[in-house]
């Protein structure tokens, strides 16, 4: 059988290519659904006192005590079975006095917890303490139910995610089948035409497109120029981005989410990067800074988990921190065995450029985000700015210097303003473009 040459084969290939692209590079759409809140399971409360007790417990006791887990102080669930109520009243109101009076039980618990003194709470009445004890004695069944509820929620969530993907896959498949069917129908029709000796219009006398192209010399010239220009443009673009690490997002040894810390919980940048205020480098926080909070936060809340990262994943990352800093969660003690965390440096200026954080952060009062981008939205930290010289210079040209209340430079500011005839001096007018300011 003789094969008939198809018309417009190039365009067909293009269509096939597009189909190919759609089939294999099927973009996964980020789901905009917010994580379903774990259904609040009503606690096995017996009355209003538990709620009141919860409020008091959370504001006064929770700094050192958890109900089911040892913290700075002992786990409190079932404490009424271990101690008499009268003993608890006087202990909570003034534990130091009890220890001083030589109460055997009081001294024993004081010794057991490395002589950690419990604060006195003279403001609590006996009813308040009863409320707290009622809250403390709510069994753990409630949180377990909450976990189960959340589990269902994630399963349901995952299900909808899968269904969207399946739908997209089915659509792609249908599309592919349509193309194949069209292709086959076309072939069969052509074969019928051939069998019935129907003349297919214009299939033979056409010169191939490339021959036509070569024959048209003007077209060849124009496309050659166009090709040269385009390749020049791309080669220039490639060479210009060598040494620029914009968008660099290495995988860090611990998955630290700036989004959770700086975004959701609104922790100041300078809380962790405290040396940005006072020194050249912004400082990678040492792990004791992490432990300021993570001593009490050993696991993330259900609501912190996202579609990409589960609660287990985040808890595992906190466990990595504990491992590195040598924190024994069960005994609430440092073991002394520490391992350095090998963070991967992202922002790195070349050696021949000088940059000082304190000068920009403390003196100029520049926001961290100005150079580092929306860090509070970054789940994974990346380099936002190109950190090229042109980028530095541009900002120096555009940014007005904060001259208010700077008595030391008052006179020179005044003279410079007169020289340039402006009210507001930019960093460039103050000498921010001089080579020696950054290169020496």
């Amino acid at each position, binding site marked *: 059988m003789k094969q008939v040459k198809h018309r417009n*084969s190039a365009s067909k*290939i*293009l269509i*096939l*290519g597009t189909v*190919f*692209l759609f089939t294999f590079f099927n973009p996964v759409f980020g789901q905009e659904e917010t994580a379903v809140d774990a259904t609040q399971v009503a606690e096995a409360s017996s009355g209003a006192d538990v709620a009141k007790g919860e409020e008091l417990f*959370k*504001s*006064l*006791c929770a*700094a*050192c*005590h958890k109900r089911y887990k040892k913290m*700075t102080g002992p786990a409190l669930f079932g404490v009424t079975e271990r101690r008499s109520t009268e003993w608890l009243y006087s202990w909570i109101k003034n534990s130091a006095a009890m220890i001083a009076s030589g109460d055997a039980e009081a001294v024993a618990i004081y010794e057991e917890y490395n*002589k*950690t*003194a419990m*604060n006195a*709470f*003279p403001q609590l009445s006996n009813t308040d303490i009863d409320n707290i004890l009622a809250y403390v004695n709510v069994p753990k069944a409630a949180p377990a139910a909450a976990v189960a509820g959340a589990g269902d929620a994630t399963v349901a969530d995952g299900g909808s995610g899968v269904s969207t993907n399946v739908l997209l896959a089915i659509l792609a498949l249908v599309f592919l089948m349509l193309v194949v069917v069209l292709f086959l129908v076309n072939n069969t029709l052509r074969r019928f035409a051939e069998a019935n000796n129907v003349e297919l219009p214009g299939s033979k006398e056409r010169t191939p497109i490339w021959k036509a192209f070569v024959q048209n010399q003007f077209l060849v010239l124009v496309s050659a120029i166009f090709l040269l220009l385009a390749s020049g443009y791309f080669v220039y673009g490639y060479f210009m981005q*060598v*040494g*620029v690490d914009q*968008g*660099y*997002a*290495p*995988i860090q040894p611990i998955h630290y989410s700036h989004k959770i810390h700086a975004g*959701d*919980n*609104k*922790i*100041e940048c*300078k*809380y962790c990067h*405290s040396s940005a205020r006072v020194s*050249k*480098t912004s400082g990678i926080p*040492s792990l*004791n*800074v992490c432990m*300021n*909070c993570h*001593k*009490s*936060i050993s696991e993330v*809340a259900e609501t912190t988990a996202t579609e990409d990262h589960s609660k287990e994943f985040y808890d595992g990352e906190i466990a990595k921190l504990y491992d590195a800093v040598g924190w024994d969660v069960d005994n609430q003690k440092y073991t002394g065995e520490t391992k*350095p965390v*090998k*963070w991967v*440096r992202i922002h790195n200026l*070349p*050696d*021949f450029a000088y940059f000082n954080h304190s000068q920009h952060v403390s003196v100029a009062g520049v926001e961290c985000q100005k150079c580092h981008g929306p860090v509070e939205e970054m789940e994974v930290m*990346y380099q936002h700015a190109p950190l090229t010289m042109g980028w530095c210079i541009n900002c120096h040209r555009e940014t007005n210097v904060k001259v208010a209340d700077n*008595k*030391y430079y008052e*006179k*020179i500011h005044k003279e410079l303003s007169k020289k340039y005839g402006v009210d507001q001096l930019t960093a460039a007018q103050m000498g921010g473009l001089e080579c020696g300011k950054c290169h020496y």
Partner: protein
Amino acid sequence: MKNTIKILAVAIAMICVVSCKKDTKPNYQYMPNMYESVGYETYGEYGVFPGGQEAMLPAEGSIPRGWIPYELENSNEGYQQAKDSLKNPIRYTVDNQEKGKALYDIYCAICHGAKGDGKGTLVQREKILGVPSYDDIGRAITEGSIYHVMYYGINSMGSYASQTSEHERWQIVQYVEKLKADLEGKTARIDTDVAVVAPKVEEEHHESTEDHSNAH
């Protein structure tokens, strides 16, 4: 045959477009020996250090310039001693109070709240619980105890000695005392001799700027 070649060409071109950039690896550099420092860089990795780690603890017994030892111990006795007898050496000026506020907002407000009532963002979001208000009668904080707790930490609260200098901690103490006074409905302490001293400081500033211009 011709078709397969064309299809392949299109496919390769598309793969190239899709998979060009890799964000987990740093880019190429023109002349790395000009980019990389000859001296040891902060947090760098160099063979001469134990474990290759540039970031090391200072040698034992080294003292930063201007450092004054803090002699009270990290114990209940030390806490009581600080509470009873330790006094704030800085003068309670408005300037110190403002600097203290700036630092407080960075380091303390996240738990203790901007007003010192123990209702910071982390407490409201129930990440950390049981943060006391500064006017808690059971604790009855004083300038000495505030400083002591900042220096060593207490119970669940960690030490802030690594993030702040001694002077900064005392500025924070002044601001915490102001917050406590606000919560209790009292007026905050501001040293009254400020008005007498302030013009003197201005004069000094003036002189120094004159010196500066003369030098030019």
